[in-house]
């Protein structure tokens, strides 16, 4: 019991910091029209490359400055968060569903099911992921759903490999054998006995995957293969910022910080959640 208490305390600040940032970013994204100080698409060449608020020459209402077309950077980041979060949730859940299901089957049943699934994973992993994503989007056409599908198609293997290994370890435990003796059918054992014990890992991976999905979406935006160019995306803003790095560094730096904080928070949040979900650590 004492050990559990200590583990819980250690988990605290990580969970709150990471969760706090994600909640803030998520709420800002959901209520973007209310929260954003400016129209993210409004261009005003009189206001181009305004610096952030603490530097001389800053305009009130343009907290993080403007880009080379005079658009408000903060508003663009907030609206860009919408796409980032939609992609993060949808792609991560899709990848999780496919990968975890196949991983659970491969790990629990073993034998030929495992051989087939593992070979597919091996082949899949041989593709360089980002190039694979770019290729997929190029084939599917740009757009939100293509980006989500591309990320899910690439990253299900991540879930599959980890959950397979976990399920395999759990399947060797005596409680699974005991359930066999009691007369449970195999699928029942997989779902009722094995699955609950791999859920903590699934949760951690899911959160990690959301961070990865944000990065991949940013990369796709960066190479202009994501959503239509009108909607602001973090990757798109970074790509624009790169062009004006010498005149307006903030256009590159702020979206990068936002991206890094979000991805880091997702992974930390996942780790903390895993500790929470794990009955032995709870």
């Amino acid at each position, binding site marked *: 019991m004492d050990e559990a208490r200590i583990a819980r305390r250690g988990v605290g600040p990580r969970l709150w910091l990471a969760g706090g940032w994600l909640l803030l970013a998520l709420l800002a994204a959901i209520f973007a029209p209310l929260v954003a100080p400016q129209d993210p698409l409004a261009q005003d060449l009189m206001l181009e490359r305004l610096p952030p608020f603490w530097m001389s020459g800053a305009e009130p209402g343009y907290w993080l400055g403007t880009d080379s077309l005079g658009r408000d950077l903060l508003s663009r980041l907030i609206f860009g968060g919408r796409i980032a979060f939609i992609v993060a949730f949808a792609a991560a859940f899709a990848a999780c569903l496919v990968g975890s299901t196949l991983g659970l089957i491969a790990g629990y049943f073993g034998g030929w099911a495992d051989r087939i699934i593992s070979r597919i994973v091996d082949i899949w992993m041989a593709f360089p992921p980002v190039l694979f994503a770019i290729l997929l989007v190029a084939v599917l056409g740009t757009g939100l759903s293509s980006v989500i599908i591309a990320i899910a198609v690439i990253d299900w293997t991540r879930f599959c490999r980890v959950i397979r290994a976990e399920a395999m370890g759990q399947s060797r*435990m*005596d409680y699974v*054998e005991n359930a066999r003796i009691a*007369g449970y059918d195999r699928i029942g054992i997989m779902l009722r006995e094995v699955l609950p014990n791999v859920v903590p890992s699934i949760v951690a991976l899911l959160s990690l995957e959301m961070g990865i999905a944000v990065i991949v979406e940013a990369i796709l935006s960066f190479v202009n293969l994501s959503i239509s160019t009108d909607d602001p995306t973090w990757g798109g803003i970074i790509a624009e910022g790169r062009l004006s790095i010498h005149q307006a560094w903030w256009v590159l730096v702020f979206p990068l910080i936002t991206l890094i904080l979000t991805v880091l928070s997702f992974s930390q949040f996942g780790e903390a959640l895993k500790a929470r979900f794990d009955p032995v650590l*709870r």
Partner: protein
Amino acid sequence: MSADCLDIRNLSAVLANGQRVLRSVSLSVQPGEVRALVGESGAGKTMIGKAVLGVLPSSVRIVEGDMLLEGEDLGRLQPKARRTLIGARTALIPQDPLTALNPSRRIGPQMTDRLVRILGWSGQRADARIRQLLDEVQIRDPDRVLKSYPHELSGGMRQRVLIAAAFAAEPRLIVADEPTTALDVTVQKQILRLITQLQREHGTAILFVTHDLGVVAKISQKVSVLYAGKVVEEADTAALFAAPQHLYTRALMAATPRYTDPFASLKPVDEAVLAGLAAEIADADQAWRPRHG
């Protein structure tokens, strides 16, 4: 019914590489009787238990012999019927009480699940039954235990829970696979006493797998001595200890440490005896062909 509770006839099993792990094992357990299966590690005692319960690892293949559970030939049943039969009439008391309980589920549902899902009892009846069994294994605070996760209980408590679970469905046969090995000595004694007590009250037959001759003497009426997957001696427990017939049994007894002389150095089993046995088994393997399969 006059049938044996468990009757194993000429059971042989091999590994994938053809190595024999069980060598024409025959043994029977009468209703309500405790049969000890004793041998050193690797002798195949656990393998026999797993074979009976239908959970042999996939690397082990049974090549001859029959197993009859209350007169029903397990080998002739369809897999599903066999599972149902084994599930309804047998139970396992495992060696390691930690890994035998699902770490992410509370004790209560884990215990009642089997009665409800497999035997079709009502939740209420299952709950009452589990509480009765917890009382029989002298767990005084069933509410706390039923709500606990396995890691929140001590090893002794977990083993009590598993004993209660094993007896809950009134099986005809329980396989106890070294149920006290993972526990410390003081707890071992209590657990052995509990198993004996419940076994008498419920009239359950037990196949008791152990390497500990002291435990054999305390708990069993019959004993089979196993060496390298072969039954080398079979007798009433009292008769075995009074006058062991086989050389290996005698060597095993001579190697058992005594509390009366705790500072005597530990003796290994006599090597000449083992060499003789190994030669005998090698000869038998040369001549052996599975009768079917």
